[in-house]
């Protein structure tokens, strides 16, 4: 085999793998804190990417309106839950986070969309919009189910995925879109050509992994999240608001998803339904990482990306088969290495 081709495939695999790593990290995070297996993670990716691409093309993305609509829903849920003891402070706070904030963002989006905003503005708006969607989704769909089993949460997660995917088609149409590069320019090193975009992908992935590591290791909120992950009841008794932990987890997951989307949409054309598969490959990485370990997930994601790159070169027909079947030996090894000592959890 040709060394150049091999290097090229490895490079390609690492770029994709970096994205899967980010998504895998987000999935692990959300699962650990809320027990939700976040199938809509893929939608965060496409929403981020397509919102960014639409804005850059001077179109008004429907996601901004969705954020406001979900915000209104979240506000209604807040009011309904607190209906017996409505404090002014609570109402005002909920009103600001759920109604005022998305309204302002919607106004800004309307203003900017008309005039083909510069790339940084597009990125900022897309991130904020998707972050709000993630936050409100948790409030509306998952927080009322927080006490139920993993299975019920999973099915709810599927419901959210279906609804978001349908909305994606409504907002962005069936046509695929591409966005402008975040960082243009390129340089070559030996046989390899590094684009500004791929450098951005590496840099942001590494930055995020380090940031998450610092967040969980050093900050109080990070520790609170970890505590919630280990023992919900214990965390509550220690005064940690588990709903807050859930909100933070979803917020982070949606930001990570949107960011991943923004990073890949200049490289590959994304469709409204591309997110599912991308998210699933993040899943594969997350499972290999055991849904608990961040560094392992990141490493696994790189492997997934590289395997994918090689199999799409040698057996492109069987690319997906190979990637998903990659899991079976890993799972086998895992179950042989650590026979499950599970206790009843219901």
């Amino acid at each position, binding site marked *: 085999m040709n060394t150049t081709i091999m290097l090229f495939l490895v490079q390609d695999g690492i770029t994709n793998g970096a994205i899967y790593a980010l998504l895998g990290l987000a999935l692990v995070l959300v699962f650990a804190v809320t027990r939700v297996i976040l199938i809509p993670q893929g939608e965060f990716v496409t929403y981020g990417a397509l919102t960014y691409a639409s804005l850059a093309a001077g179109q008004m993305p429907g996601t901004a309106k969705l954020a406001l609509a979900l915000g209104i829903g979240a506000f209604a849920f807040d009011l309904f839950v607190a209906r017996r003891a409505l404090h002014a402070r609570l109402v005002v706070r909920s009103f600001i986070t759920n109604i005022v904030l998305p309204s302002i963002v919607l106004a800004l989006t309307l203003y900017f969309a008309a005039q083909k905003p510069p790339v940084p503005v597009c990125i900022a708006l897309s991130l904020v919009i998707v972050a709000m969607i993630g936050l409100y989704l948790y409030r509306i769909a998952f927080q009322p189910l927080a006490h*139920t089993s993993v299975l019920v949460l*999973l099915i*709810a997660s599927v*419901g959210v995925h279906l609804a978001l995917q349908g909305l994606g088609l409504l907002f962005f149409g069936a046509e695929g879109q591409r966005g402008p590069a975040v960082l243009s320019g390129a340089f070559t090193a030996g046989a390899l050509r590094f684009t500004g975009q791929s450098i951005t992908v590496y840099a942001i992935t590494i930055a995020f992994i380090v940031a998450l590591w610092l967040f969980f290791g050093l900050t109080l909120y990070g520790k609170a999240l970890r505590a919630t992950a280990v023992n919900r009841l214990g965390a509550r008794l220690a005064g940690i608001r588990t709903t807050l932990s859930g909100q933070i987890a979803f917020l982070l997951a949606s930001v990570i998803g949107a960011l991943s989307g923004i990073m890949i949409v200049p490289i590959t054309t994304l469709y409204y339904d591309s997110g599912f598969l991308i998210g699933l490959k993040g899943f594969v990485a997350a499972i290999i990482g055991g849904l608990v370990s961040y560094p392992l997930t990141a490493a696994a994601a790189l492997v997934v990306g590289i395997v994918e790159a090689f199999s799409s070169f040698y057996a492109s027909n069987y690319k997906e088969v190979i990637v998903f079947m990659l899991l*079976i030996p890993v799972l086998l090894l895992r*179950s042989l290495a650590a026979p499950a000592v599970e206790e009843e959890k219901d």
Partner: protein
Amino acid sequence: MQSRLPILVFAALMAAIPFVPGMPPFWIVLLDNIGLAALVAMGLVLLTGVGGLTSFGQAAFVGFGAYTTAVLSTAYGLSPWLTLPLSLVVSGSLAVLLGLITVRLSGHYLPLGTLAWGLGLFYLFSKLEFLGRNDGISAIPPLSIGAFKMLSPGSIYYAIWVAVIVSALLTMNLLDSRTGRAIRALRRGHVAAEAFGVHTPRAKLLVFIHAAVLAGLSGWLYAHLQRAVNPTPFGAQAGIEYLFIAVVGGAGYVWGGVLGAAIVVVLKEVLQSYLPLILPGSGQVETIVFGIMLVALLQLAPGGLWPWLISFLPERTGGRKPDTSLKLEHRARTVGESGVLLQVEKARKQFGGVVAVNNVSFDVQAREIVALIGPNGAGKSTTFNLITGVLSATSGSISVLGRKVDNAPPQEIVKLGISRTFQHVKLVPDMTVLENVAIGAHLRGHSGPISSMLRLDRADEAKLLAEAARQIERVGLAEQMHQLAGSLSLGQQRIVEIARALCVDPMLLLLDEPAAGLRHMEKQRLATLLRDLRDGGMSVLLVEHDMGFVMNLADRIVVLDFGTKIAEGTPATIKTNPEVIKAYLGVAA
């Protein structure tokens, strides 16, 4: 367990539907689809709702069933009736293969693992040449009986619903049997079930195969209904959809699967045909509404709709008391169950740097009550776990009747006649007391899954239940026999555990804090029971914190502190032992 009348009524109703004058043919198509989905969902009910194993991969098994018959009946011209067993065998044997890999996965790996191979197989279906790649296989012959060809949705309707009702009956029969109880115990963790001889990986594999065969049956019917197959209906989306059919209907209930299928199929159809009229426009509005309704439904009824519906029915109280005159054969005895029953020699258990049990030695003789006492964290429950094979010892040896049983699995220990209760009660809360106790007699029954499904197990089953009822009466809970175990007080649940342990017909009973949570009178009754058992030839090893209870009951006491044995002797000598007093009170008296 349940009266068959409602099922007969339901079957008659379903049989009559096509004869209703003016019945739109389209409704029959819907009912066909409901039946097909219900078959798969029923398997998932057993797998997920009852057995606690979540699978996203069921659509792949539907695909195996459909493709098997498609290939064999088109390329090789086999009769569809011949391909039926082959379809089921293919689904079933691939389930064995995939099951061997995946059912060992614990917790959340399992659903994700099934999702992964579900996806992989979907892509495989769409890439393989002999399966027709993305186009699939068409011109599949219809089912036929003699000259009668089931070409219309109305004619295959009966084949589908006969399959659904028969499968439901078989599945319910299976659940209401020796094997069924083992399956129902899976969801609550495997430790308790294994302590009574249930081979949990095998039980898991069994439900996995059962669900796959039902899915394969659905696939076979699907292929002959559509008379064409392509990969689309066997993808991950479909696998997810089957799962939420089961959850929406009520994942723990066989009929919940049918109800869920009806709801989801009808809902999708209604949304698809009427929503565009209300909300015109491009896009999959129906998917959006469907997703939202799914979340809303879960928030309103997280347990599914079937249990919500039957909660409106008048509660059926009581059940038939088993005929206790039936005798169950005794456990196969080893010769000479006398002398030293259990010998623990320098048993040691380390968890990392922590020595939980430090070279502890003691024995239990025949017809003897030995108490294992010590402050919290002394290693008493760990010692129990070492004896019963739940944990394996780091070093040292444990012998039963003079034979070393080092690190034998729990299923083997119980065969030697050692049965136990747990410090943290491990009953299946949604099973009745009788059913829970009958798990104890698991090894004394013989009926397998097939005979249970066909109801050939009734003689065996009646004896098991009779034995369970006898033991329940013996411990004084006859009144609660048909109540759900979860509805009993904690103290009573401990007593239920003792009855379950007695069902083993043990020579040595290991009781982990049996008196905790009991009232004074109940403790006295327990003490009397244990003395009776000893006088009847059984030995008892118990861990207990109630000193009054222990001192009055035990023949001999072993005291542990920080994993080390500090004293052994009769209650009188232990009471005055300075080491013991120091361990409990912290000062030398």
